[in-house]
C-alpha cells in the first residue's frame, strides 16, 4: 500500500464525511432522516443544474473545455444550486414530518427514492452523452484541481496532506466547527436537548419546531455538498456511478461515530479505508470473493459498534432518546 492508496482513501472519505455530518446534525434534533442518500442526490442534481446554466452562459461545452468562463462564477453557480436543491429536500422532509406529522422513516425513504430518481432523470436530460466533456471540464478546472500550489509531486507529507481540493479541507473544518457548536455552545445545548427530550426543551422555552427545521435543513445542505463533491470533484463530472450506496454508508457511519462529528472524521476514514481496500488487495490475493467480502467490513464494524454501545450502556453514547419520534405539544 503506497501513498496514492491513502490519498484515494481520503478522497472518498470526504463523501461519507459530508453525509455523516449532515445526518448527525439532523439526528441531534430528533429527526431520523433516512433520506440522506436522496439528499446527496438532490445536491448533486442541483450541481448539475448549476453546471448546465454555466455551460449555457459560457457558450457551450467546448468553450468551457477550452477555458472560457470565470471559475468564480462556475463554482458559485454549482454550489448555489447544490445548496438550493439540498435545502429543498431538507425543507420537504421537515414539512412532511413536523408540519404534517408524517412518519419519519417512511418520509426519509420517500426522500431517498425521490432524490435518486430525480438525479437519474435530470442528469440524463441535462447531461447528454454528446457534451459530457463540458461537465468533465468543470470538474477538472474548478473542483478536482488541488490547492493553489500543486503539491502532488512533492514529498510524501505534502502528497498525503496537502494534495486535495478545497472541498476536502472544508469538510474537515465543518466537522470541527459542528463538533464545537454541539458540545460547547448554547445553540448546541438546545439542539441536543431537542433531540433528547422535545417536551422538556419546549417547556424550557426552546422553539422545538424551529430547531428541528433549521437543524435538518443545515444538515441537508452539508449532505448535499457531499453529492456535489462526489460528482464534480471525485468523479470529475462523470455521472456513471451511483451515489445512493455512498449515502447509506454515511447513515451507517453516524452510528459508528456515536453521533459525534469529531469521531465522524475518524469513522469516515475507517469506512473509506475498507471501501478502497479491495482494489490493492485483489492484486495481492487472487480470489474473486475477497473484494466483496472486504467491502462488507464497514457494516460489520457498525454492528460491532452497536453491540459495544449496548454492552456498556452508557447514556452518553446512546442515540438521542427522541430520535424518530414526532413531537406535538398538546399530545397527552
Amino acid at each position: 500500500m503506497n501513498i496514492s492508496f491513502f490519498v484515494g482513501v481520503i478522497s472518498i472519505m470526504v463523501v461519507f464525511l459530508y453525509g455523516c455530518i449532515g445526518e448527525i446534525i439532523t439526528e441531534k434534533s430528533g429527526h431520523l432522516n433516512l433520506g440522506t442518500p436522496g439528499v446527496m442526490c438532490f445536491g448533486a442534481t442541483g450541481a448539475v443544474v448549476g453546471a448546465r446554466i454555466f455551460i449555457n452562459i459560457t457558450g457551450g461545452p467546448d468553450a468551457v473545455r477550452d477555458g472560457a468562463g470565470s471559475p468564480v462564477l462556475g463554482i458559485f453557480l454549482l454550489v448555489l444550486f447544490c445548496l438550493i436543491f439540498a435545502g429543498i429536500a431538507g425543507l420537504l422532509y421537515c414539512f412532511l414530518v413536523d408540519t404534517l406529522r408524517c412518519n419519519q422513516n417512511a418520509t426519509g425513504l420517500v426522500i431517498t427514492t425521490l432524490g435518486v430518481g430525480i438525479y437519474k432523470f435530470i442528469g440524463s436530460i441535462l447531461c447528454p452523452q454528446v457534451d459530457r466533456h463540458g461537465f468533465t471540464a468543470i470538474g477538472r478546472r474548478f473542483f478536482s484541481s488541488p490547492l493553489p500550489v500543486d503539491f502532488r509531486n512533492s514529498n510524501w507529507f505534502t502528497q498525503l496532506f496537502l494534495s486535495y481540493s478545497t472541498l476536502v479541507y472544508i469538510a474537515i473544518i465543518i466537522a470541527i466547527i459542528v463538533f464545537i457548536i454541539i458540545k460547547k455552545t448554547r445553540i448546541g445545548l438546545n439542539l441536543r436537548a431537542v433531540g433528547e427530550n422535545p417536551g422538556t426543551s419546549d417547556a424550557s422555552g426552546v422553539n422545538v419546531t424551529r430547531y428541528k427545521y433549521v437543524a435538518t435543513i443545515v444538515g441537508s445542505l452539508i449532505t448535499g455538498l457531499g453529492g456535489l463533491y462526489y460528482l464534480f470533484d471525485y468523479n470529475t463530472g462523470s455521472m456513471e456511478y451511483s451515489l445512493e450506496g455512498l449515502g447509506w454508508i454515511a447513515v451507517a457511519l453516524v452510528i459508528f461515530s456515536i453521533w459525534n462529528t469529531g469521531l465522524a472524521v475518524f469513522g469516515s476514514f475507517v469506512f473509506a479505508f475498507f471501501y478502497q481496500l479491495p482494489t490493492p488487495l485483489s492484486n495481492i490475493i487472487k480470489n474473486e470473493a475477497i473484494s466483496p467480502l472486504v467491502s462488507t467490513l464497514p457494516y460489520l464494524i457498525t454492528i460491532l459498534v452497536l453491540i459495544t454501545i449496548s454492552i456498556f450502556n452508557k447514556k452518553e453514547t446512546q442515540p438521542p432518546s427522541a430520535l424518530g419520534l414526532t413531537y406535538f405539544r398538546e399530545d397527552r
Partner: protein
Amino acid sequence: MLTTSNNIKVVELKNITKVFGSKVANLNVNLDLYKGEILSILGENGSGKTTSMNIISGLYAPDEGSIYINGELAKINSPHDSLMYGIGMVHQHFKLVDVFTAAENIVLGLDKQDYANFAKKIEEQEESRFAELRKQGKEPSEEELKESKKRINAAKSFNIKNAASRIKEMCDRYGFELDPNKKVYNMTVSEKQTLEIVKALYRNANILILDEPTAVLTPQEIDRLFMVIQNMRNDGKSIVIITHKLNEVMRISDRVAIFRKGEHVATVETNKTSIKELTDMMVGAKVDLEIERSTPTDVADRLFVNNLSVKNNDGRVVINDVSFVARSGEILGIAGISGSGQKELLEAIQGLRPLESGEIIFHNPKKDKPATFFHKTLKKIKALAAHGAFHDPDGKRINFKGMSNKEIRKMVNDCKVLFYEDEIVNLKGKNPLQIRELGIRLSFVPEDRLGMGLVSNMNLVDNTMLRSYRHGHWIFLDRERPRKLIEKIIKELDVSTPGTNTQISKLSGGNVQKVLVGREIALAPKVFMAAYPVRGLDINSSYTIYNLLDKQKCSGIAVIYVGEDLDVLLALCDRIMVLCDGRISGFVDARKATKEQIGEMMTRHGEVQ
C-alpha cells in the same frame, strides 16, 4: 401570615375554556393568584387542575378566555412566553433531559435576552456595591474593578461553569441541596424535583406552579420541600400546588381552590375550612369515608412463598428470604417504605423476575373439579391418573387401566374425571405465559400502569385484548369479545372516555387505572395482586377500587394489596405483612393493629410482633 393582605393579583384567569376532542377539560375557569401566597388547587382526577395550570404555563392554548399577569393582558403562546412573565412550572412528570447535568438542564432554553438580563442584574449589584464603598470614602481598587467587569462579561453569555456557581449561590439562599454537575439519570426523585424548582428560580420565576409535588416523596423529603416553599413565599413569590392530598392542603396552603369536572367550584381560605368541607366541595356529593370490609369466609391457603430472594435490576438483593401465605377470601396487605422490595416481590410471583432462591407454590383449587383438555394433554392426564390424581363422580380412584385413548377422551369430555385434591404447581422458573397456560390465573395491577399494565398508544379495546389475543377465529383476532368486555368495564366502573376506540394516553390517570383493574378482574383470577392501585387517584375512584378489591375477596380470590396509606391498609386488609428493607418484619391482624405499630415495624426488622 403575610398572605393575601397585600391583595396584589399576580395572575388572573378569566373565563378560560379548553376542550380536548369532545371532552371539556376546563369550562369558564376564573381564578386569582395573589402575591406572596401559597394556593392549593384541589380536585379529583380529570377535574381540570393540571389543564388550567398548563394553560398558564403555555403548554396548552386556551380555546376561550384570557389571562392577566400583574393586571395586564398576557399573550402566552408558548412555555417561553410564560417564562418571560415569570411563571415557572414543575410538572408531575419531570421535564428534564436525562443525559444532561443539573446545570445544563437549568440553562437549557435561555436566550440572548435572558443572558443580557443576567448581566444587567449583576452590573446593578456591582454598582450598588461600589456605591456603598464610595460612601465609606473608599475607591474600589483597579483589581476589584477588573474582577467585576469579568463577572459581568461572564454573565453575558453561555457558560456552564459560570452557571454552576450561580446555581450554588441560589441553592444556599433557599436551602436547596443540589450538585450542579450531577447527571440527571443519577438523581433521586427528590433531587430531580429540587432541580426543577431551582430551574424555575434561575429564570427569576415569581410564580411557581408545582403539579403533585409530594406524590413521589418520602415524609422527610416532603417536610424539606414545604420548608423551601415557605422560604420562597416569605421571599414574596406566589406558589401554586396542585394536589389531592387533603392533609397537605391544610398544612401548607393559604387558600384552596377547588375544581370539579373542569370547573372552578370555589376558593376558600384554608384556616376557615375543614377537610370534610373540602371533600364535599371536591366530589360534589358527600362521600362515605368508610371502606367496606367483609368478614373472610372459606379461607384456604392459595399461594405459598417460601424463602424467596429476588434481585432488582441493578443486581442488588431486594427481597431477602421472604416467606408468607396468601389465602383465598382474604386481603393480604403489604406495607413498607416504598422501595422495600414490594415491586420485585410481585413481579417475581407474576413470573416476570427470576428467583435467586426459594420457591412459589400455587395451590390450584381443583378438588372435585373436572379435568379438561383445555389445560392438559391426554398424555399428561394419563400420567396424573397413574399417580392417583383423579376420582370419578362416585369417589373411586381412576387409573384408566385397560381403557383406550378414545374412551379416556370421552370420559374427560363428559366431565367424569375429577381431581382428587388441589393441584399443586411450583411457579419457579415459569414465565407469565407458561403460568397462564397451566391454567393459573394471576392478575397483576402493576405500579407502573402505562409501562407494564397498558400500552398508552393503543385504544381501549386493544388494551383489553392484551389478555385475550390468543383466543380468536383461526388466524384472525377476535375484537368483538374484548369490545363487549371493555364496554362493560366502562359502564360498571364509570370510566370517563369518549369511546372504546380512544387511545389510553388520552385518558386521565384514574380512568386508566379503572381500565386496567377492570381488565384484570375480568380474568376471574385466583390471585389478584395490586401495587399502589390508587396512587394518583381521586377519592371516588379510590373507593371504587377498594370496593372492587373487597368484592374480589368475597368471591374467593386471594388478594394481595401493596399500599402506602396505612389508614387504608388498616381499613381494607385482613392481614398485613410489613416489609423492611426486603425482609419481613412481621405480620399483623389489620383489625387489631395500630398505625404506630406498623410504622415502627416498617423501619425495624423483626422484633415487634
